[in-house]
């Protein structure tokens, strides 16, 4: 029962088809009207009596008594392509709407879509960056909304931005009530806001790591400061180098060398390397854990 509540499913509204057809028509009709005008102008030329306005929406009326050539030209170039486009669009939109479904599962948002190639897109909630609800001019005519889900993986790996624009991963068009899905996704994201352990490394910010490192460094200094044994002094005296000279050579205050020789200071590895280099020996010869 709980599962059923979790698995929320939804489809796009049928108005989506009308909206797309309207949108395509808004682009196509001016183009075809211009084409018709162009052909009519071309074949009549000066024969067109003056005062005749541009052809109306029905080109058939205009070409009554016109040479057959123009009629066929218009039919082949304007009418048939328009009809073919409309039929293909209508059929593919119907299939698209029928195939499109999405569901909010426990960890993922799953979107099924595709006309010929069917795609099942799974978007993990942890990857979702933000959710945009978009409503264009044509959308508003039908009171439709598009929900766009931006994922982290997409925006980062996008080598060609144009590809992303045309084929967005989380793109749910034609929704009457976008708030339902938005709320649902937000709710799921909140549940998953804790970071899974295997992602911890990738998500930690360097500053946090630096701070953490700083703390553990101090803790380790406090904890281990007295466990270190050193024979800097012997080696230094053997080589006839004063503590002042050593301090100068490795670039630290003389006090540090004194503390080091007492064994009450835990140096950083690079300082240990520098001292070993000056005294011409290995780090392990210089310092030992007690």
């Amino acid at each position, binding site marked *: 029962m709980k599962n059923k509540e979790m698995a929320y499913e939804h489809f796009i509204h049928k108005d989506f088809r009308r909206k797309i057809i309207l949108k395509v028509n808004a682009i196509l009709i001016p183009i075809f009207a211009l084409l018709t005008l162009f052909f009519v102008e071309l074949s009549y030329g000066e024969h067109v009596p003056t005062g005749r306005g541009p052809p109306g929406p029905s080109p058939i009326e205009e070409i009554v008594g016109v040479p057959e050539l123009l009629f066929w030209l218009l039919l082949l170039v304007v009418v048939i392509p328009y009809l073919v486009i409309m039929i293909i669009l209508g059929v593919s939109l119907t299939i698209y709407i029928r195939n499109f479904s999405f569901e909010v599962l426990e960890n993922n948002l799953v979107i099924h879509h595709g006309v010929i190639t069917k795609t099942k897109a799974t978007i993990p909630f942890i990857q979702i960056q933000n959710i945009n609800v978009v409503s264009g001019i044509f959308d508003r005519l039908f009171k439709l909304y598009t929900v766009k889900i931006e994922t982290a993986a997409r925006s980062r790996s996008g080598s060609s931005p144009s590809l992303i624009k045309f084929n967005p991963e989380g793109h749910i068009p034609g929704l009457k009530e976008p708030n339902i899905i938005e709320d649902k996704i937000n709710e799921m994201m909140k549940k998953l806001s804790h970071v899974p352990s295997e992602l911890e*490394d990738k998500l*930690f910010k*360097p500053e*946090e*790591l*630096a701070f*953490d*490192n700083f703390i*553990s*460094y101090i803790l*380790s*200094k406090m*904890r*281990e*400061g007295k*466990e*270190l044994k050193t024979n800097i002094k012997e080696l230094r005296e053997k080589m006839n180098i004063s503590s002042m000279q050593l301090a100068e050579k490795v670039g630290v205050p003389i006090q540090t060398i004194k503390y080091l020789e007492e064994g009450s200071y*835990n*140096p*950083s*590895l*690079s*300082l*240990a*390397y520098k001292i070993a280099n000056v005294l011409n020996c*290995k*780090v*392990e010869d210089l*310092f*030992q*854990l007690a």
Partner: protein
Amino acid sequence: MVGIIPRFNKKLVSRIKELREKQKISQQELAKSVGVSRQTIYYLERGMSNPSLTLSLDISKILNKPIEEIFYYEPFVVEFLGNKTVDEMDEIADVTGVNLEKLLNLRKIDDNQLSTMYTEEELKKIAEALGVKFHILFIKDEG
């Protein structure tokens, strides 16, 4: 006597990850056994931090390798040659006239060997082929 020694990168290179994986120890396990957080180990593996000596000694004990084999400073030459492919190395050998084997040996050179095995001319040509100034890669040590 004029000797040439390589210039070293300031950043520590760490082989913790490689050695740890060879011995099948996880980050978590290593962190626990040396008494630091896992982030510290992660940080060390990336060479992003300068560990304390005691921590380094602890790690060297657990990984059973001397400190010098776990943490070291890399000469700039090695860094520059390190990411070259065999073909690129071949090309450098052609341009400089230094034989390929000698070039490959330069990758694991010890600073004392440098001036005995390579002449200053050779090193200058190599630096030129790598597109770097000689004095960035090497230090001429007089005295």
